[in-house]
């Protein structure tokens, strides 16, 4: 399976789970909806260039918006993630080994703590932006932070489950 085909399948799968499952169940405590679709962008191979990443995330976010009937909302958040991702990876994974270029960010390629930080920060960024744009009003700042943090935690839980269910071995890429 080529890298591109694999990415397309992943995108479809993530979108399907997000739209058909997570977005259609009632929000937890009436205001928390986890998102898993973001993981597609976080899993993209490292060698995808910055510009490609930006355009890709715009298209991906727009497709997500098509299903959630909020034009521009997820696209905008995804562009933020794509913009912040390369720098963050530079920061967390300074040693760019020869073959590491090909690998995706993952538990095995980055190590537990850097990978968890990577997931946490980008998810936080994404959710914070989405909630901010959804409300367009910080309103009660405490309430805003509670919502962002709680949604982030819930999403991270979903991501952890996904990571455990679908182990990605960087060795696969080398073959």
């Amino acid at each position, binding site marked *: 399976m080529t890298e591109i085909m694999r990415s397309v399948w992943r995108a479809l799968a993530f979108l399907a789970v997000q739209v058909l499952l997570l977005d259609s169940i009632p929000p937890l405590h009436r205001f928390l909806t986890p998102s898993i679709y973001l993981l597609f962008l976080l899993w993209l191979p490292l060698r995808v260039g910055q510009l490609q990443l*930006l355009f890709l995330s715009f298209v991906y976010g727009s497709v997500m918006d098509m299903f959630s009937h909020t*034009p*521009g*909302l997820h*696209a*905008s958040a995804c562009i933020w993630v794509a913009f912040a991702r390369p720098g963050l990876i530079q920061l967390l994974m300074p040693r760019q080994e020869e073959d590491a270029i090909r690998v995706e960010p993952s538990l095995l390629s980055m190590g537990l703590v850097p990978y968890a930080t990577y997931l946490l920060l980008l998810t936080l960024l994404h959710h914070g932006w989405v909630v901010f*744009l959804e409300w*367009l*009003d910080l309103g009660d700042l405490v309430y805003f932070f509670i919502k962002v943090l709680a949604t982030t935690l819930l999403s991270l839980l979903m991501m952890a489950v996904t990571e455990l269910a679908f182990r990605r071995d960087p060795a696969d890429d080398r073959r």
Partner: protein
Amino acid sequence: MNIILLLIRRNVTLVIFLALQALSLTMLFRFNRYHKSIVSALYNEMAGSVNLRYDGILRYFSLRAQNEELLRQNTRLLNELRSNFDRPDTARLTAPLGKEPDRRFLFLPAKVISNQVSARKNYILLHRGAAQGVAVNMAVVSPAGVVGTVVQTSPNMCLAMSLLHAQSKVVAVLKKGSGFGEVFWDGLDPRFLTLAKLPQTVRVSRGDTVVTSSYSDKYPPGYIIGVVDKVMNDQGTNTYNLRVQSAVEFQSLQHAFVVANLQAIEMDSLTRKLQDPND
């Protein structure tokens, strides 16, 4: 130009990021009803507040014209008051202003030329005189309340004794009920008048409105004089001594009305007959 291109090329990621972000935010605000309404509400708010301030400034320029317009309107309305008429019956034709057979009071607008409040005996100079129908002993009121009495006239001006005058005296009643007294000035504070000789059978409390009595031959009945500020009992005479806050701000008086009692001559002659039976 080259430098700009170079800058763009160097920061191409940032430029693309901003462009895409702008694109998606445009979509967000254009195609979502909630976001669209928030943005347009914000725009309206901003434009509205600017317009409001601008309008507030513009209003100053037309202030004079508006004042004159209001004065005209007030004169017309005051002359329409029912209390200006003493109507023996209703089967009369209407006549031009001031010539109606049963009109009792006529309001004549007058500009205040000079004004004083600091003396013991204060006078107000008005720009309307004998040639314009002013006579001695006519009442002077402002839109806010009773001001005083005309004491001298010249062809185009008249001098009025303000309520803030040691000799001014107005028969007054409480708007809410019976009993009449006299309003005069104690010569101390231009904001406060005194209402005396009001019998203590009348219930008075702070905030009651004091108006002119219908017993007065000068003032149109029911015209406001002031508001009761403090109630003091006069132990010796069984009457009240009330401190009344004047309805008129004498310091900032600009427009006034001279009130002509068109039936004053008739009333005078009748009273004089009573006093002098030989006449």
